[in-house]
């Protein structure tokens, strides 16, 4: 092996050693990269997008509406005119599914928006203020938490009466508790961490710490919980429909369709199968997206 003497001249180098060879990624890029690599999560996201499009725009392409009875065409099996068939009152199940999905999604997103707001405020205040206030607020949460939300929801729905508006109010009133817990837990653990201390020593004030440091760091957890609470709300509405406290006819949700279809199953199973399949698809999609988000934001949980 011959090496030229010139090779042994000193190497001119700057602070190359400090350079990082791989590209740096932000939390969001990193999360998105992991999310994108997860086929189940991406599949869930796609299905979800399709169902949302189906619910929002589907009715414009349908010649039927969801509430007009057609006694000439009851209990039809799936055919070219009615791809999902018709129910016992001759209503097109496909069109009803679109409207039902609208309402179910509305309940899912709407009620989570409500409990997100309550939960972030409650949990944020409780976690950040700490001391006796935190103690007191957590006692309340503990008490509410020790009884299953289903019982509260039923009691409140019995009191307020069935209907879409009351479902919103009741689900919002009940479901903020887990959100508040998560937010508080996040804030508590983060509050103790060095970067918050560092920010404080650098003179950042409370508001800035909350907005610049704590919120971005806990947002991942919050999104995960929200993504899993949406399907839970849709589920809850289906249950309420089953016990007769759901949305009232002629309004239709996937849950109320399934619940009505249940009675009809011996003569015509499709009136249950289609809405049930839609619910299951929504659940699967949301759960996959939720799990994908969890893996994406918190790779430690994955393994």
């Amino acid at each position, binding site marked *: 092996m011959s090496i030229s003497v010139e090779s042994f001249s000193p190497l001119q180098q700057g602070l190359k050693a400090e350079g990082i060879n791989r590209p740096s990624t932000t939390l969001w890029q990193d999360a998105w990269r992991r999310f994108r690599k997860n086929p189940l999560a991406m599949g869930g996201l796609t299905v979800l997008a399709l169902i949302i499009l189906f619910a929002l725009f589907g009715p414009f392409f349908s010649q039927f509406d969801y509430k007009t009875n057609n006694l000439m065409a009851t209990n039809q099996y799936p055919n070219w005119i009615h791809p999902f068939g018709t129910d016992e009152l001759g209503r097109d199940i496909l069109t009803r599914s679109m409207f039902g999905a609208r309402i179910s999604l509305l309940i899912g997103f709407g009620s989570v928006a409500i409990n997100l707001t309550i939960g972030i405020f409650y949990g944020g205040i409780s976690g950040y203020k700490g001391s006796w206030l935190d103690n007191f607020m957590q006692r309340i949460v503990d008490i509410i938490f020790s009884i*299953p939300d289903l019982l509260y929801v039923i*009691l409140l729905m*019995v009191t307020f009466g069935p209907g879409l508006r009351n479902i919103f109010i009741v689900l919002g009133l009940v479901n903020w508790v887990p959100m508040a817990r998560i937010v508080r837990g996040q804030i508590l653990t983060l509050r103790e961490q060095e970067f918050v201390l560092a920010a404080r020593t650098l003179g950042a004030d409370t508001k800035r710490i909350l907005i610049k440091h704590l919120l971005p760091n806990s947002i991942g957890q919050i999104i995960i919980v929200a993504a899993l609470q949406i399907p839970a709300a849709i589920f809850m509405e289906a249950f309420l429909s089953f016990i007769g406290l759901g949305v009232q006819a002629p309004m239709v949700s996937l849950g109320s369709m399934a619940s009505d279809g249940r009675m009809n199953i011996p003569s015509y199973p499709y009136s249950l199968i289609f809405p049930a399949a839609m619910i299951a698809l929504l659940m699967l999609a949301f759960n996959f997206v939720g799990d994908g988000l969890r893996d994406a934001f918190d790779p430690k949980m994955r*393994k």
Partner: protein
Amino acid sequence: MARYLFGRIVSALLVVWLVVTLTFFLMHAIPGGPFSSEKILPPAIMENINQRYHLNDPLANQYLDYLKNIAHFNFGPTFRYEGRTVNDLFREGLPKTIALGLVATVLALVGGTMMGIIAALKQNKAPDYIATFLATIGVSVPSFVLATFLQYFVGFKTHWFPPIGWGEAKNLVLPALALSAYPIAQITRLTRSSMLDVLNQDYIRTAKSKGLPGYIIVLRHALRNALIPVVTFMGPFFAYILTGNFVVEYVFNIPGIGQFFVTSIGNRDYPVIMGTTILFATLLVTFNLLVDIAYTVVDPRIKLTGRKGA
């Protein structure tokens, strides 16, 4: 320990009292009272009914009476089951609800942990995918849909198991399956992820470095640690088994508490609704206390102060 238990019992009683109070006032806040949704009754009869159920007394008196009765485990008369008290319904329904709940509990605990362990040990292989798939289905289908499908497609179509009714052991099969599907799914997911987590712990590496064979590492070193989160799930689990009964008993026409409850919601039979809520809340609070005690058995680090040791 005694001090801790005392504190827990006091707070449990507090929760039950709050539930009683909340239920009472919510039910009395309903405009029109319990009989209003029916066809309009003649005022004389209405008056008669109100008299009989003390609905004309001041609210505070009614509340105190109710508290007094609850303390004596007297939940009052029903509105719609002629001549029967809520206690009668409980006496009739509770054994069935408990029997069904027990079967479903065993099914869920055994099935869920087994599936979770197998899935974790065969991570990213066929058994894992099958278990994960079943678990995903279990959390994606509403229980009333699942119960109806089981009843119709298994019960009516195959006649393997009776689709409806109560009395024999085989009557329990389909309802117990329907009731345990969701908790099986949850426990499978939970066991799987906590097993995977535990298998990556340092002490598992230590166990390997000691030359222990794989099955001992799994059974002796991993499993007990992996089951700790499953014990955490026991509170929500019992809650689910209890409330899941609403649907399952109704669909399979089992005369248990759940069926009475759902029927009473339809009938606006307030004493039954209140009584069931209070009964279930009490049962759950008791369960949760037992679960906390069970912790200390599984995890020696936890002493009954509610705190983890170093």
